């Protein structure tokens, strides 16, 4: 099939990863270091093994599958392009793992990937799983690129191999706070979060920014990332008469929450971060969705160069619509491949410097990393729910649409 490759990306070439030379010491892996050496078959084929981790079971599995599909599309593209690394044609393999959005399970599968000497890891989806797993990858010398973990802590642990292609919560929370107070002119704001690293982190950053802009936080309530009943906390919130309700968490809670808000007879608009900025949200919230706001790092898919072509290919291949982070997972794979091509190697210690210094015109953005591993100039777009879809309002920061 023809690639939607933006013209710049000369056929990207490469991919992957590494058994890192430096890394093997801490993992007690007895696994043969098969990865870098190119499999037993044709000697000139370089096998590059990429781990991918996201929740594939449980309430967030629709998002996890979306990430994995995005990564798989990238891998298939790379293979179809006969991507060349260091003079050898690379064959990319994706090892998809399921962390169930559970931090404990996240470390278990991280260790498994470390033991099987993958060349790099794309993931995880949630901040709560990404942060504990990043330590395992760091110890094993494996490069990690998360397409969607936004908690600032992830890249602030001093791990050189930890990257993300998505704006973090400090940026996003700041934009959301300013938007709520300066643009929407909301004065009394209630905040709910799901107590995960992501939800809590984003809610904290939002609260800080909103307060700094002059709003009053009238309630701070909590739920979990598995809850479906929000009647009692919403009733509590109702008693504080807020102008706006901010929820830090995923669509699986945000949707039902918006609907229950309506059954409680509350006409308070809701504001969300990226986790609820999905197609699924509208299905879950029904009529309750109308008028809600959300933010999503990056520019809208149809404003990305090649965005609509990407969606078409995605839908043709997986027979479902993009939920959320698939384009970012795609870019995460491509950017790792590009670094490998530049380094001419799938060894982490060789391609890591290339990755840190990369300037790659990805699908979602011009990808460059700062010294922490965060994407530079990440744009953030605000959306409003109008008749069953998110409509882009404005894009803040970044080099908005190219």
């Amino acid at each position: 099939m023809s690639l939607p490759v933006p013209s710049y990306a000369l056929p990207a070439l490469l991919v992957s990863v590494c058994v890192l030379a430096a890394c093997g010491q801490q993992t007690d892996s007895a696994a043969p270091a098969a990865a870098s050496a190119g499999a037993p078959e044709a000697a000139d084929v370089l096998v590059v093994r990429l781990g991918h981790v996201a929740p594939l079971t449980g309430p967030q599995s629709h998002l996890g599958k979306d990430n994995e599909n995005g990564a798989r599309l990238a891998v298939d593209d790379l293979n179809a392009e006969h991507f060349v690394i260091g003079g050898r044609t690379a064959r990319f393999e994706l090892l998809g793992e399921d962390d169930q959005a559970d931090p404990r399970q996240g470390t278990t599968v991280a260790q498994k990937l470390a033991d099987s000497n993958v060349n790099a890891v794309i993931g995880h989806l949630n901040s709560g799983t990404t942060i504990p797993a990043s330590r395992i990858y760091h110890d094993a010398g494996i490069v990690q690129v998360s397409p969607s973990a936004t908690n600032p802590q992830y890249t602030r642990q001093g791990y050189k191999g930890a990257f993300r292609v998505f704006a973090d919560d400090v940026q996003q929370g700041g934009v959301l706070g300013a938007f709520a107070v300066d643009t929407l002119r909301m004065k009394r704001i209630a905040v709910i979060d799901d107590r995960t690293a992501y939800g809590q982190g984003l809610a904290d950053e939002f609260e800080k920014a909103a307060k700094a802009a002059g709003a009053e936080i009238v309630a701070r309530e909590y739920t979990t990332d598995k809850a479906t009943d929000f009647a009692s906390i919403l009733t509590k919130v109702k008693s504080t008469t807020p102008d706006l309700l901010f929820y830090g968490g995923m669509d699986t809670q945000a949707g039902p929450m918006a609907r229950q808000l309506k059954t409680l007879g509350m006409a308070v608009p809701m504001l969300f971060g990226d986790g609820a900025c999905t197609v699924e949200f509208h299905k879950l919230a029904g009529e309750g969705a109308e008028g809600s706001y959300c933010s999503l790092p990056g520019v809208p898919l149809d404003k990305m160069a090649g965005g609509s072509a990407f969606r078409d290919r995605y839908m043709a291949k997986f027979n479902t619509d993009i939920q959320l982070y698939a384009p970012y997972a795609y870019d995460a794979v491509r950017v790792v491949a590009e670094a490998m091509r530049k380094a001419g190697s799938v060894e982490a210690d060789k391609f890591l410097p290339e990755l840190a210094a990369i300037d790659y015109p990805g699908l979602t953005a011009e990808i460059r990393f700062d010294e922490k591993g965060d994407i530079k100039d990440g744009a953030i777009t605000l959306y409003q729910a109008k008749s069953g879809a998110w409509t882009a309002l404005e894009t803040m920061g970044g080099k908005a649409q190219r």
Partner: protein
Amino acid sequence: MDIFIQQIINGLVLGSIYALVALGYTMVYGILGLINFAHGEVVMIGALTALTAIGVLVPAGLPGPVVVLAGLLIAIPVCMAVGFAIERVAYRPLRNAPRLAPLITAIGMSIVLQQLAMIAWGRNYHTFPALLPALPHRVMGAAITDLQIIIVVTAALLMAALLWLITRTRLGRAMRATAESPSVARLMGVDVDRVIAFTFVLGSALAAVAGVMVAANYSIAHYAMGFMLGLKAFTAAVLGGIGNVGGAMLGGLLLGVIESLGAGYIGDLTGGFLGSHYQDVFAFFVLILVLVFRPSGLMGEKVAERA
């Protein structure tokens, strides 16, 4: 005050659902001394079956309440069949095995059903179409929807019918006799296997109703929804006194109200030291207190009323 009333309403709606599910646990426990951990999955299957049926019926253009009722009437026999099959496959062969064995098969059954549902219905959340009017009525400043009224009333009617069945019918007498002592009941001419199968079928029918209520009230259903609900309902059954039918009803309603009030007031009561994330802690704390002072649960001592 309106906030307080609203929290009570929230709690009663939630509690009615817990109570219906708790009945399934407590009836099986009363008769077999077995915790049917797969019961939560039966609720889930009820919700998803109804949802699928409703999805098929909606295009037919029937009025919303009729469609929901039809979905419910399809879900009930499906759940009954599932309950019957669970007993046949997982518990009957182990009737005389050590008590640990059926406990393990119960957990196994729960996992099997959950995974089968994941394969059949996928991993996504399914949404319940807006067939019932969601606009709230105002009652003393609190909001309540038609659906919530229906849930509370239906649950109360079903519980009354169940009590009647257990205390006033031949079958109920056979159930009570079996609970008392299966071997003696058998000697008295009670078909114990049939009574046990019936108990599972009956509990599953109630679970189907509860499943449809959950799906309709929260507008969502997914393959993993049965686990937490089952755990809460089990807690409600223990709170009321497991094995005691009246206790399950009381325990369910109490747990719902406690959770609701806990989430609403725990922050104020502790001056913000504890927040609504302690909602579940609050509910389980009450459970522990009750068990410390009444180890058999609130209504647990009246063995004669066991069903």
